[in-house]
């Protein structure tokens, strides 16, 4: 009868060790992703180095679901650049083109007006109450490159959170049941 107890004990210890190994593997994967994200932030100099296009205001150039790569340099903002900016009080950043620039002689500060390529009017309606121009501190980055369709994953996961849970559940299952 003793050997049954021994077998049960040994099985338990293997399971605990496996569980711990897998927890560490999962932790490593999450940490690597975080490191890559932070590195991207450092390299591109932007708070949010990648954004997903959420609206059709820049069509046909950018469509909903496209991903934009951002870069922010100290270079002055100029007309024609596609910038990503935040409006006070709005949480979702907007990606539109700069159509007017006024740069001050004394301070070098700049006042900028933007417009979506596919919109009829400029963005003054989107700015905060009484705000006529954007300043540099509103701008998070310039769009320098893009990848079509890939952002749909993020959109679906935000708009249908159940999919996010299913995905995480499936990933979790995969990690736990893998032989490694």
């Amino acid at each position, binding site marked *: 009868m003793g050997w049954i107890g021994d077998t049960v004990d040994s099985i338990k210890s293997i399971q605990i060790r496996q569980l711990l190994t897998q927890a560490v593997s999962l932790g490593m994967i999450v940490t690597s992703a975080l490191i890559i994200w932070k590195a991207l932030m450092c390299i591109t100099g932007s708070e949010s180095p990648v954004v997903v296009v959420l609206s059709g205001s820049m069509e*046909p*150039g*950018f469509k909903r679901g496209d991903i934009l790569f951002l870069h922010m340099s100290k270079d002055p903002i*100029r*007309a*024609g*650049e*596609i910038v990503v900016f935040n409006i006070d009080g709005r949480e979702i950043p907007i990606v539109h*083109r700069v*159509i*007017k*620039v*006024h*740069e*001050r*002689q004394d301070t*070098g500060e700049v*006042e900028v007006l933007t417009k979506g*390529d596919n919109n009829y009017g*400029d963005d003054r309606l989107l700015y905060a109450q009484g705000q006529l121009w954007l300043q540099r501190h509103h701008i998070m980055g310039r*769009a*320098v*490159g*893009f*990848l*079509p369709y890939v952002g749909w994953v993020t959109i679906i996961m935000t708009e249908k959170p159940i999919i996010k849970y299913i995905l995480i559940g499936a990933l979790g299952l995969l990690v736990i049941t893998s032989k490694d």
Partner: protein
Amino acid sequence: MCAMASLSDNLNSPSPTSQIQILNINWFQKQPHGNDEVSLTMNITADLQSLFTWNTKQVFVFVAAEYETPKNSLNQVSLWDAIIPTKEHANFWIQTANKYRFVDQGSNLRGKEFNLTLHWHVMPKTGKMFADKIVMSGYRLPEEYR
């Protein structure tokens, strides 16, 4: 894949050309808020066919007036823009009034010399976007409001 597409774009050496004529100053006034505003009609011709590659989705083109004032070292005001979807559309001629208001920050526009720049922004099917411009100088606004 994205990077390779962009690499092939870099091999392209484009040679776009353009000319802009100001046909008429429609009106030129100081608005109630104190800022000068001018309405003008332009003749814009351009050949941007050399910008298109297999990886080009569209070319965004715009004309901006650029000038300096005592308060501002640079003012860039977009007057007109268009999207060119294909190479066939890229050799064009258009006569148009300014699509966007040419308004100064202040009233510095009388007799003002300015440049007209034709900018293009090539948007790829995937990868890096690139942009450049042609600067045309020698334009001047009237000395008096009209």
